[in-house]
Each structure stands twice: as C-alpha cells, then as structure tokens.
C-alpha cells in the first residue's frame, strides 16, 4: 500500500480515515482545540449580529507564488466576513481530495491554511474530509465556512450607497490572477509577481471603527476583478459609477503581464484588495486609515457614485483622456493568441 498518497479508503470513514485525521490533519489544524472530536464545534459569542458565509475553492495549480489553495480558502472566507462588516470568529475547513494526491501536498496546504488562520487570529474549529476518484476533481477542493461578529455601528449594503459617495480601492489590481496564470501549465513565464492573497479584516475593522455608518458598502474584488464589483454595484444601486484610470494603483509587473496576455487588469482576480464606498466628506479620512495599514499602503480614491439611471453604466476616463465603459466580464478571459 502506498502510504505517500491519498487513497479512496482515506475517505471511507474507517481505519484509514481515522489515521489520516489523527496523523496528518489534526497535528496541523487541531492543535488549537485539543480534546475529543465531536460532531460539531460549540462557540460562545456575545450578543449582537452574526455574519455567516461559505465558499469553495478550486485553483490550478494548487500552489502559486504568494500562496496556495489552503491560504486562499482561509483568507477568502475571512474576507467575505470582513466586507460584511464582521470580525471573523471561527472557520470550518472541508476537503475533497483526489485519489492519488501526494500526502506531502496535503500537509503543505494544511500547514499554510493553519498559518493563515493563526496570523488572522481565527480558529479552524470543524471540518470534514472526503476522497473522490481520479475523475472527481483535480488535486483537491477546499471548502471553508466562517462565522463572524458584525461590528457595532456597521450599516453596509447597496441600499446605503448615495450619489456623490467616493469609491476607494486599497491597492494595485491583478496580482493574484496573473501570478496564478504565470505558473499555469503551458503558459509559464517568469515574473516576480506574487498573489496578493491576504486577510482584510483588520483593514475593514479599522475603517468601521473610525467611520461607522459612513462606510456604505464594501466588497473584495475577487473573480471578475474590479470590473465585476463595480458593474454589480452600479446595477444594484441603479446609478452610474464614474472612475478615473489614472487614480487606480498599478503594479507595473502586473500591468506588463496583463498586456502580454491581452487581459484587462480591471477584470483580473484579486484576493487581498478592498473596494469601499464611503460618504464623500469622510473619504479623505478613509483614505488615511487605509494607507496607514500595510495592506492599504497604495490605497486611492478611484471614483464616485453618479446619478440614477435606467441602464446604469460604469464609465472610466482613461489615462489618455478617452472614455470607455467597464462591464461585468463574460467569464474567464482567455489569453490572446496573437
């Protein structure tokens, strides 16, 4: 029997399952909660509002510059809580493993997930493991769910966004998507680009602590990038949105990589960036707060919320002074061929 690789029996609920949990998973993830394994984790929380979210993560390759699927799964779910105005309290982490996956890869991914959770001060309190055949998935699928406590005074939502509000972006675009593409099979090109994968709850927490109800809406522009986030915002609030390309923070390496591949940086995924819509008079203060945190050092005010419109559009004034619209991308943009 190959002890280095995942077998179907590892997900069967028998001895091998118990061994995998005891020898691989718990030593990495379980150290925070020693004791008997029960069917559910019990959490004590103060009275207030809870935020609850879940997300499944599939990424190829499983490891990429600046992170891996484990760190991604932890930070991604923390960020979903963070932009809902919550501070994360506990996470679940469930694995769907492909038969034949190297156990060393699993260890690496779990170690990185545990590290990301520890750095963020959040516990992974429950989980599950299943194994599927070789056709069932590519390497592994990770699902995380998270609960968090919503900050007092936070009132976030599309309905809170008003004409004249300022749109802030915490940093440069496209680092995650492009660093993943840069090491994808058949397309590898060397860059020193690293995924921006990071937990945003400190950033959102300090914004809300200072500005409370003046923060009207937050979102992390992941798949579909800034374009999807703003297009969705405009559609949901029924107002035009105006942004300035010149104001958008740029990572020159990411820009060159996007140009080479024919991709629009606005549509490339980010995993550690924040879009915040803030009341205009508080925007300078919001910018100051974002810039004082290492994850928001390059933050900028990139645009404003405009008038109500029946077919609301996101319009961008380009660096050269032209105008274009910014739309929800169709799906995954494909690198060009010539």
């Amino acid at each position: 029997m190959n002890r280095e690789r995942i077998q179907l029996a590892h997900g069967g609920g028998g001895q091998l399952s118990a061994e995998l949990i005891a020898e691989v998973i718990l030593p990495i993830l379980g150290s925070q909660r020693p004791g008997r394994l029960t069917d559910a984790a019990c959490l004590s929380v103060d009275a207030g509002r809870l935020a609850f979210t879940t997300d499944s993560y599939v990424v190829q390759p499983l490891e990429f510059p600046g992170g891996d699927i484990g760190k991604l799964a932890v930070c991604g779910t923390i960020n979903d809580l963070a932009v809902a105005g919550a501070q994360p309290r506990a996470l679940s982490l469930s694995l769907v493993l492909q038969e034949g996956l190297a156990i060393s890869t699993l260890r690496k991914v779990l170690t990185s997930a545990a590290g990301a959770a520890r750095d963020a001060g959040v516990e992974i309190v429950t989980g599950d493991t299943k194994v599927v055949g070789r056709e069932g998935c590519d390497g592994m699928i990770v699902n995380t769910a998270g609960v968090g406590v919503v900050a007092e005074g936070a009132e976030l939502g599309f309905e809170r966004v008003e004409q004249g509000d300022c749109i802030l972006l915490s940093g440069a675009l496209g680092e995650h998507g492009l660093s993943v593409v840069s090491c994808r099979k058949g397309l590898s090109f060397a860059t020193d680009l690293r995924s921006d994968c990071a937990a945003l709850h400190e950033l959102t927490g300090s914004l809300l602590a200072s500005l409370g109800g003046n923060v009207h809406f937050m979102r992390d522009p992941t798949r579909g990038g800034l374009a999807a986030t703003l297009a969705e915002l405009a559609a949901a609030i029924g107002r035009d949105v105006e942004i300035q390309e010149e104001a958008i923070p740029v990572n020159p390496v990411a820009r060159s990589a996007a140009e080479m591949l024919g991709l629009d940086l606005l549509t490339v995924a980010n995993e550690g960036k924040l879009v915040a819509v803030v009341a205009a008079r508080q925007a300078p203060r919001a910018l100051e707060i974002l810039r004082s945190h290492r994850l928001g050092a390059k933050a900028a005010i990139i645009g404003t919320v405009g008038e109500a419109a029946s077919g609301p559009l996101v319009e961008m004034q380009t660096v050269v002074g032209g105008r274009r619209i910014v739309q929800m991308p169709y799906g995954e943009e494909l690198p060009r061929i010539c």
Partner: protein
Amino acid sequence: MKDPCDRHLREIRRHLDALKSLGSAPVRIMEVCGTHTMVLARAGLRSLLGEGVRFLSGPGCPVCVTDGAYLERAIHLSRTRPDITLASYGDMVRVPGQSGSLADARCAGADVRVVYSAGQAVEIALACRDRQVVFLAVGFETTAPGTALALRRAQREGLENFSVLTAHKRILPAMRALLVGDDVRVDAFLCPGHVSVIVGWGVYRELVDRFARPCVVAGFEPSQILAGVAEILRQLAEKQPQAASVYPPVSREGNRVAQAILEETFVPADAVWRGLGEIPESGLDLREELAAFDAARRFELPDYPTQDPPDCRCGDVLCGRCDPAECPLFSRRCTPRDPVGACMVSSEGACAAAYQYERFRKR
C-alpha cells in the same frame, strides 16, 4: 504616458484641421490587428479623437477571419473520431458553427483541449501516443512560425500521432483585397505591430504604390497608436502616402529567420476569409514534404459550404462597411455570452471590443 499622448493629440488636431479645410475629413483608418482593436476600445481612443477620425476594425483577429467551413471540419473530426484529440487556441473553442461550437462538441464527449502554443500540442502528442492529436493552426504570420517549429519537432521525434489542420493567413493579400473594387472604405491602414515584426514594414510599399494609401505600423500602447494616427494624418494632409513604421521593433525587412522558417514550412495558397471570401495566395498551406502532418490529408474530411449565420454582418464589419452597432444582431441576439458571429467571440473581435468597452448609453 500622458505627455507623449498630448503631443500626438496636438499634432493630430493640427493635421485634422488641415484635412477638414481640404474636405478630406473624416478620415477612415482601418486597423488590421486584434490587439489594436482591443487597445483602441479599452483606451477610449474613438471618444478621444471624436468625429474627425473613424477607426474601422478590419480582418486582424485570427478567430474572426477563420472561415466557418474550417470550423465545421474541425467539429466533424472531433465528433466522428473518438481517437482524436483536438488542440486549439482558447477563443476558437467558443465560435458557433452550423453544428454548434467546439465547446459544445466537448460537452458531448469530444476531446478538445485548449493550448497556448503549437508546442503544447506537440507535448500532448508525445504524452498520449495512443491518440491522434490535431492542432488547429490558425493565426497570421505571428503564430505561423510557432506552428512551423512544432512541425519540425514532430518530424524530429518521428511523431506519427500529430498533425495540423491549417488555416494560417497572410495579412498583406487581405489588405490588398480591401483596396480593390468600387466600394473601398479605407483611407489608410494602421498596420499591425506583431505581424510587421515578422514581415517588415517594406511589404506595405506595394499597397502605397498601387493604391496611394498610407500604411503605418504602430505599437500597442495608446500613445503608440496615437503616434501612428498622427503619422497617417500628416501623410494625408501633405498628400504623400508612404509605408512607414513608428514602432521601433519593426524593421523594413522584418525577421529574416522567421521568414525563412515560414518559407521552409508553408506555401502561399488561396484561402477563404470570413466576410471577404476567397483571396488569392492569402493562406499558408503545408509544403508537400510535410504532407504527412496535414490533418486534411490524414483524415477524411467532408467539404462544407462557407455559410455565415443569417443576418450576421461580421463580413461587412471586417471590410469596414458597417460598425458593429449597425448589425441588427449586435447586443440583441449576439453578445459575448451568446455570440452569433465570430467577431463577438474573440476578445479581440471588433464586435466584442465595441460591446465590452464602447456600449455607451445613447444620449
């Protein structure tokens, strides 16, 4: 980036004023490069230059110009031969044909894989010796050398399970075809940067001599495109059309090594372009000595008629006879999500670029 742009813009406005006083504006400039099409739209250059310059997006997107019959042949192969793996560039997979797209064929069980290079298709053939790997070789003089190198490798490795279905195209004969006839809509060509690196800017002299249209090669930054436009307008205002390049990597002679590789691998052949029909010597067929790698000879392929979807005006768009928004299907039945015509599929297609970046609200 802004300063050179401002300089080019001032120059453009000056020449446009001169052209307007001569009654020669608006000027219709056709770009024949998908990347130019995309950058024009993304940078908002149409809105920036206003009415004086009309950009026409010509046959510069490889996916858009590929004839529907070629696609039908590829789909036929993927559906009828379970031992075949098709290796294709990504955009090609979504183009709708008479019998669905390659993506539809894949959903129905065909083995269609997206590759980023011809070399990757050879890798698949090396790894899966029990499968016949057919590379769908589309694109201009930019991607054709990659196909040529892949074929060399296949030859060296003695690969018997690799072949190419070629639809490679040469841009110059298509540009020539657009200037022949009574209904010429093109005042000048903004010549492609990538293709011209290979073929050199000297080849466009023929068009200048014969048709007196400026042919100017430009790079891909918005400022480089504006530099190209300024040069075109200068030539028109001074009535001195020339072949020229404002893109430093392009020489007059081009890349001789790449040209030699192309010559060793391909022979010019008549080819059918979507919307433009058959153009003499505008395609690249495999040389006789490489016939063994020609999928069209290795497999039995029925002839399909060239047929564009009804009401689709991709052909007129590619010839500069209509703007994407003038097509009755544009943004109604034909969107990037559910494309009818090929120009809506590729992100470099004229219709996709117009849809994605220029669909302003009518004011």
